[in-house]
């Protein structure tokens, strides 16, 4: 254990080099600045606290649709200009929507941050939503759904699992929306969504890179400071009713290899960073799946050879109810049932017999090292800060991840396995691969018939 202590101390010394500064603008907009002077670049990320968790049936995918429309222009910066101006400055821009947030970002040379702020402040207030651009973009989003979900069997399994494991909470709906909901979205609905959620007090601005907090403060006040805030709708608690028995679903799709996805309800870290359970679940996911020597890799892939691939994932952070997820592909000659049985036996073993100290130490060592490695990416540092802020945790907790993980005991890992990874809390989804026929033996069709 002495070895790990030395590393922890070293990491804390490193983190002191790059400080976090936070402040709030008069309108309630929260700003986090992470200094990193290694390269003359800066990333700006604008985190709106709105995602699919805020959506309603019939208009699913509206947060994501709005994200696309945010690039469609304002009176001062017409359609296409946002991207053109950032590119002309040598920058990159894009945006992401998920269950919990919508984030817009720009990466630029450090002296060009004002451009990003000017453009973001403009479209926060003056988005010009026109019917024609909306119809085209709506088609683009439907193409995106076909690409990401409908033609991806494993993504379909995930979508079906979410819709099954959650019955009340909006996490049950896909971020991109159901196809029919996307198709029927109207410009008015998108406009109302924009007016409802896009207000500066629903925003965290994260700036990371070769900047000074004073300069960022000045620029943020200049561009965002005068934007009026308006009241946000009340966000009602939507507690998921307790699951009281195992759920099973089967998804059929053209494929050659089966796939297994299992999810247990398990709490995420919300608001209280000192809640030990999510940290213990995070360590548990590492004990099960962090390379060939972890339990899944060693026992399921190598000793029993029941899995071709198998992994565990626990996201730690989220505004809504959490999941502990395991997925895998059975090896040739084995079935998804064989694999499921073997996975459950591994989890039962942790719940019954606990984990060894060397397993615990190994997971901690990887977390400690990753905490150093992630500092190589300014963008990733900013992402972490934004994610913590979005779920209501102080940004300073990002620097305490190693402390929280180091405090986890083997007994705590056993306890969360026993408490949460139980059959009554489990949903199992499997892909049943379907064969397909080639139909191109038919005579060629004239191109014109396609139209």
């Amino acid at each position, binding site marked *: 254990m002495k070895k790990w202590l030395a590393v922890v101390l070293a990491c804390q010394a490193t983190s002191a080099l790059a400080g976090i500064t936070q402040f709030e603008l008069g309108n309630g907009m929260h700003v986090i600045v992470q200094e990193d002077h290694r390269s003359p670049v800066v990333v700006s990320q604008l985190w709106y606290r709105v995602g699919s968790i805020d959506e309603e049936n019939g208009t699913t995918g509206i947060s994501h649709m709005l994200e696309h429309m945010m690039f469609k222009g304002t009176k001062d910066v017409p359609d296409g200009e946002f991207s053109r101006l950032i590119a002309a400055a040598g920058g990159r821009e894009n945006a992401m929507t998920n269950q919990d947030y919508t984030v817009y970002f720009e990466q630029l040379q450090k002296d060009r941050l004002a451009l990003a702020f000017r453009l973001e402040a403009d479209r926060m207030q003056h988005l010009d939503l026109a019917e024609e651009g909306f119809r085209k973009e709506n088609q683009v989003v439907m193409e995106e759904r*076909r690409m990401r979900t409908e033609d991806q069997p494993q993504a379909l399994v995930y979508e079906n699992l979410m819709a099954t494991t959650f019955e009340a909470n909006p996490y049950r709906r896909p971020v991109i929306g159901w196809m029919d909901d996307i198709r029927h979205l109207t410009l008015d609905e998108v406009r109302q969504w924009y007016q409802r959620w896009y207000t500066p007090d629903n925003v965290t601005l994260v700036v990371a890179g070769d900047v000074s907090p004073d300069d960022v403060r000045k620029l943020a006040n200049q561009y965002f400071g005068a934007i009026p805030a308006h009241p946000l709708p009340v966000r009602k608690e939507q507690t998921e009713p307790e699951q009281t028995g195992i759920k099973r679903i089967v998804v059929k799709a053209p494929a050659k290899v089966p796939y297994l996805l299992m999810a247990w309800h398990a709490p995420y870290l919300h608001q209280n960073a000192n809640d030990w359970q999510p940290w213990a679940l995070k360590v548990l996911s590492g004990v099960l799946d962090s390379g060939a020597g972890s339990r899944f890799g060693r026992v399921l892939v*190598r000793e029993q050879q029941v899995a071709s691939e198998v992994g565990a994932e626990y996201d730690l952070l989220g505004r809504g109810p959490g999941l502990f997820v395991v997925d895998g592909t059975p090896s040739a000659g084995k079935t998804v049932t064989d694999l499921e049985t073997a996975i459950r036996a591994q989890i039962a073993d942790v719940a019954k017999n606990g984990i060894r100290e060397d397993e615990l130490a190994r997971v901690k060592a990887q977390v400690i090292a990753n905490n150093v490695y992630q500092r190589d990416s300014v963008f990733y540092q900013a992402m972490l800060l934004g994610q913590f802020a979005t779920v209501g945790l102080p940004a300073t907790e990002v620097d305490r991840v190693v402390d929280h993980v180091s405090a986890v005991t083997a007994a705590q890992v056993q306890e969360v396995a026993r408490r949460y990874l139980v059959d009554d809390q489990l949903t199992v989804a499997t892909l049943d691969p379907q064969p397909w026929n080639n139909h191109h033996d038919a005579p060629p069709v004239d191109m014109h018939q*396609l139209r």
Partner: protein
Amino acid sequence: MNMQKIGLALGLMWSSAVFAATPFTHWQLPGGTEVWLAETHQLPMLDISVSFPAGSAFDPADKPGLASLTQRMLDQGAGGMTDVQIADRLADGGAQLGMELDADRASVTLRTLSRPEQEQSALAVMSAVLAHPAFDASVLQREKARLEEALKEEDAEPQMMAAFAFQSAVFAGHPYAHRTSGDVGDVEKLDAGALRQFWQTHYTQDHAVIAMVGDVTREQANAIATRLVSGLPATAPGVSVAIPPVPSLTAPELRQISFPSKQSQILIGQPGVKRGDPDYYALYVGNYVLGGGGFDSRLMKDVREKQGLAYSVYSYFMPMQQAGAFQIGLQTRTQETATALQAVRSILRDFVQNGVTAAELTQAKDSIIGGFPLRIDSNRKQLEYLSMIAYYHLPADYLEQFPRQVAKVTAQQIRQAFRRHLDPDHMVTVVVGDAPALK
């Protein structure tokens, strides 16, 4: 006015780029290994890559997939350690070992903390993996079975089906033509003897190229490099790692594969350009306008923004040892397949015919030159550049030259370069999906 704007952008970029790029040095070890180092002590970590001419282009004609499987097996038992012991020893120090493979190159990468205890332990594993792989027969049997499942999974993914069909049509008869990892039937035929032989032939001291970025001095780097390659064989006399030139296509080809998907995957292309080609910068800047510059590109503006036919549409040149692919890619709903195909073909034809406008050229240069610091703003990105420069024997001042060469490109050079390298009449077109037969 335009000239002034370019000059200004270049000036700004230039001062930044000097700050951004960590200065690097390079030297050769007595056994012939090239070592390239960027020394930077800002983070207590070290990134290393060791590359060999051991990509899939070196697969014997009757053993597709040999290079890939050889590399996959390196860390599955080596130097007296089992696969699990290797993984545990790396994890104990928080180190990450990685494998990358394309048609030219096989690279083994390591990311480790630079504290002596962790670093030494990780380096011991890496040198065992490089120089003493076990190629144990029973482990190989297991890994082959796992690989075959992964390949079967890809065989039902329209995107992968399109990529493999494209590769085999564009490079027909050339070592770049086959799937990097081989097909399911190919993998089954590979045995431990063949793997060992491939390793012995291709993972040699004199062909090894090492790149290092991070918290290490020149002296330490030299010791590390020496240690990593000291157990490697020398290249046997008569072994050549030359790759034959890629023949040009002499006729158009349409390959349509039927699959019950919602979208058609469309790929269009030809052999493109090789590393170090004098036309590279003109093609690179031109391709920004055609399909490389995201929302600045003609393909995106037309196919996505104007017509709403695709979420993603792009083009790129992938320079390799020999001419790598030029590729245009998109996916569209089944019923629009012919429309999208026609749109892309007409944009390409017009582009090769007429090239770029002055405004497009300025925008492309501003974006590429102004964005240069973002390409080298992390140790990992610098490692990739360093490794590429070293492996392909590009000029040592490649990173300094890059923005300068981009700034010099003219519209005429772009037009000439595209006409020299691409022929819209002889393109390969691959369509995977549910659309009726195309012409």
